[in-house]
């Protein structure tokens, strides 16, 4: 990555794609309370994405607003980490993604709140409080499923094994960024390791670390997600509510 535009866009895309994936659970979650919870978290992510995209557009200075950035880029132009574009799959996979993402976003936004860029600092201070709530929610489910029945334990462990390799990309070093993601790893481990232990889950030790999202090289899943998210805007260019 290079420069504040790419950094801001990467964070925005993480939040936007996570929001879109979570919204897929609406009307499909295992219980009504969880349906509302996932929709609320999606809304928080969308709120952060809108602020970050608007600011990225200003930093770029090419006249692109939040809508142009969200709806008129192709997958190769998206800078989100691969973990957020992975399909929802099992409910346990969604919870593993939610938990790991929040455990990354909370120290990220906390660090941003103290950074020199005033706009990013304001967004960080605001989003930090919401991320803390997401983290609590994700941790509750990881513990409940991990330390639950034999079946829920099996599926939660499979979910952690599946998602864990994708977490490494979140912490790829970028010393020139307003917050170097590599510095966030200890805070992530500090939260994640005890929760996995309490959930009676084994922390994977796989060295496999798929990456490429920050450079626009995505899994095959992102293009389908974008097609659904962007179709209305592209079919009716310039349409307003």
């Amino acid at each position, binding site marked *: 990555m290079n420069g504040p535009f790419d950094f801001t866009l990467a964070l925005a895309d993480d939040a936007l794609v996570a929001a879109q994936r979570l919204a897929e659970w609406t009307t499909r979650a295992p219980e009504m*309370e969880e349906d509302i*919870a996932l929709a609320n978290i999606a*809304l928080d992510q969308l709120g952060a994405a809108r*602020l970050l995209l608007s600011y990225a557009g200003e930093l770029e200075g090419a006249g692109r607003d939040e809508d142009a950035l969200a709806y008129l880029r192709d997958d190769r132009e998206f800078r989100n980490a691969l973990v957020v574009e992975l399909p929802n799959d099992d409910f346990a996979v969604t919870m593993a993604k939610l938990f790991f993402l929040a455990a990354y976003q909370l120290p990220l936004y906390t660090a941003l709140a103290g950074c020199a860029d005033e706009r990013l*600092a*304001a967004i960080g201070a605001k989003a930090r*409080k919401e991320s803390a*709530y997401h983290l609590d929610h994700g941790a*509750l489910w990881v513990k409940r499923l991990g330390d639950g029945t034999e079946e829920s334990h099996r599926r939660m462990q499979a979910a952690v094994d599946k998602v864990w390799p994708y977490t490494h990309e979140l912490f790829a070093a970028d010393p020139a960024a307003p917050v170097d993601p590599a510095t966030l790893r200890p805070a992530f481990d500090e939260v994640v390791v005890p929760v996995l232990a309490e959930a009676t889950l084994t922390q994977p030790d796989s060295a496999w670390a798929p990456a490429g999202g920050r450079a626009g090289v995505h899994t095959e899943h992102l293009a389908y997600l974008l097609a659904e998210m962007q179709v209305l805007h592209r079919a009716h260019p310039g349409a307003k509510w």
Partner: protein
Amino acid sequence: MNPREAAASVVDPEIRVITIDELGILRAVEEDPASGRVTVTITPTYTGCPAMDVIRADIRRALTAAGHPDAQVQTVYSPPWSTDWISERGRTKLAAAGIAPPTPVPAAGVVSLTLAVRCPQCGSPETEQVSRFGSTACKALWRCRSCSEPFDHLKAL
């Protein structure tokens, strides 16, 4: 009605018993002495709060009615909104409408303990959380063990 009173009278579109002033999201109302143009500054409760567009429109409508058709509404994010900004009057109104007001936000570095949420129907502290998320981004769903009534609780933030 002066511009400040006009803006302060706008009610929250999702919790219609409380004004945006009592909710603490109305940050400033300024009138340019030379041009007379009014600028209203608001801040969202949550980043994704879907009520913001309606609130902006309602503020412009209220100011137009008060003789300021060219009022501007700007949104700021810093400092971030906190439930501690809800006024005493706002808290009383929330409780009267069956929404348990938020408990105080613990200061940073202080070990937080969960304070009992009183049932807004019968006043009992014997309550339990049903869902950490509720009908709007700012609320959670609770239930009273004494009177068995479910109720909304504005989450401390």
